[in-house]
């Protein structure tokens, strides 16, 4: 069996960083990354981007050495992706924040509102309902992170955790401040409005969860396979007929209904920002589906049926 030699150069400076000899032909990029870490321990595997061309795309961990267009001496270019943090860690941190922060405002912990309001409780039913809904939403997200989601990538750049937490925690505080404020004004159309909003919220939460489960079932544990998602027996998944990312559609619905329920402008603004971001993601996902699958259903739109 012929062994390969692998030299790893810095993509920017072309400096020779590492030379590996006697590499098995069926070694994967993941294994090469592990070998590279041995000589450069500060660059752990998730931080490494190895590519065939300094400006090219990163090679995948699963790629096998002998299947790559290289000679028996392979030259790989390395780029440092920067400190990495696991997706799970980021999700858990960014979702636990809102859960706690909202409760600080709900219980009117001192120094937020005037002293005479410390630890008092709102007299409006909708305020209590809103707390339940908001908390439920984030508990659901935490549980999904731990037990449902199957991530394609293990890690993301470390700076994302600061960016993401600022976003989630900041908005949670901003919304919670007004909803739990002693001068909060309940919705104009009273109980009718709240009931309708609650119904939509519950439907969207169930819908979003159904989609997460459907997506999970598409991919066996530990694998990174990708398939076209289709509607299942669960009626909530029938939205797949019309959109590529019904999870985002339902998520948008949840927040719009929460805005309706609380009649709180900051919630509406949060929904708008979230909608913008999810639309960008949905369009990206939709595009990758179209590129990867020739037979992708043509009726589907990225996030809003028929429109967007």
């Amino acid at each position, binding site marked *: 069996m012929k062994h390969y030699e692998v030299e790893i150069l810095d993509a920017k400076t072309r400096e020779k960083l590492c030379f590996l000899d006697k590499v098995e032909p069926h070694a994967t990029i993941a294994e090469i990354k592990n070998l590279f870490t041995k000589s450069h321990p500060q660059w752990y595997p998730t931080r490494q981007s190895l590519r065939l061309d300094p400006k090219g795309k990163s090679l995948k961990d699963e790629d096998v050495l002998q299947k790559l267009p290289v000679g028996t001496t392979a030259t790989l270019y390395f780029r440092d992706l920067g400190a990495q943090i696991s997706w799970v860690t980021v999700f858990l941190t960014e979702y636990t924040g809102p859960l706690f922060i909202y409760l600080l405002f709900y219980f009117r912990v001192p120094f937020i509102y005037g002293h005479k309001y410390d630890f008092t409780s709102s007299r409006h039913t909708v305020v209590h309902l809103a707390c339940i809904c908001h908390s439920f939403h984030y508990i659901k997200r935490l549980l999904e992170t731990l037990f449902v989601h199957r991530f394609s990538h293990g890690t993301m750049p470390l700076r994302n955790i600061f960016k993401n937490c600022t976003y989630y925690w900041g908005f949670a505080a901003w919304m919670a401040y*007004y*909803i739990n*404020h002693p*001068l*909060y*004004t309940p919705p*104009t159309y009273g109980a009718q409005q709240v009931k309708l909003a609650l119904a939509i919220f519950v439907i969207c939460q169930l819908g979003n969860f159904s989609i997460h489960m459907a997506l999970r079932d598409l991919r066996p544990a530990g694998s990174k396979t990708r398939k076209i998602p289709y509607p299942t027996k669960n009626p909530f998944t029938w939205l797949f007929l019309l959109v590529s990312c019904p999870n985002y559609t339902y998520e948008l619905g949840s927040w719009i209904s929460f805005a309706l329920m*609380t*009649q*709180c*402008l*900051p919630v509406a603004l949060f929904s708008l920002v979230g909608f913008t971001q999810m639309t960008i993601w949905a369009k990206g996902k939709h595009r990758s589906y179209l590129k990867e699958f020739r037979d992708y259903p043509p009726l589907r739109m990225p996030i809003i049926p028929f429109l967007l």
Partner: protein
Amino acid sequence: MAVAAATAASRGNGGGGGRAGAGEASGARKKKGPGPLATAYLVIYNVVMTAGWLVIAVGLVRAYLAKGSYHSLYYSIEKPLKFFQTGALLEILHCAIGIVPSSVVLTSFQVMSRVFLIWAVTHSVKEVQSEDSVLLFVIAWTITEIIRYSFYTFSLLNHLPYLIKWARYTLFIVLYPMGVSGELLTIYAALPFVRQAGLYSISLPNKYNFSFDYYAFLILIMISYIPLPQLYFHMIHQRRKVLSHTEEHKKFE
């Protein structure tokens, strides 16, 4: 605001920002400009803007000579100032459609901060219009913009006199601190009037459960000026690179 001041200098000088002309700081530059129609339009745009700011400059001088003092000159150039500074919003469009190779985000930031100072501070709080700080930033902006727009005009025509380039990368040393000071002092002067009138502010309770305190917002804006000295020193550093590079070229001519 912070970025308005950064604008006064970095836009006037290229600095590290991604504005047209800034590429020269990095030496080798790929020439792949806009098409002939876009170039013609941009030349017209930049000429008009140069002219506009010249009108403001002349207006200031004439008003000074007529009044015999430099106080309250704002009123004599209020209209062209509003017109031409607001007109700069077009530059965001230029980046968005790609005829100018700058970042849409950066340009938006810079233009919006200028527009904010003109409309949301100076125009909105009448009491500050007679402040000397207004003259401070108006002069800084006027000189900077005249140089900047003529710089772009000449660059588009591929004939940039060294003097303009020198001016763009040198005068900011004085104009930048001048502009920043003028802007900060103006916002500071506006504060009590904003507080008193409750300008642009909404308080609870209201049916949309929202509040906004413009006074606090202005304080935050002032705080956002803090990173500017850092940017200023960065631009001084960039200046040495750009001007020495040009000097070298001139030696070989």
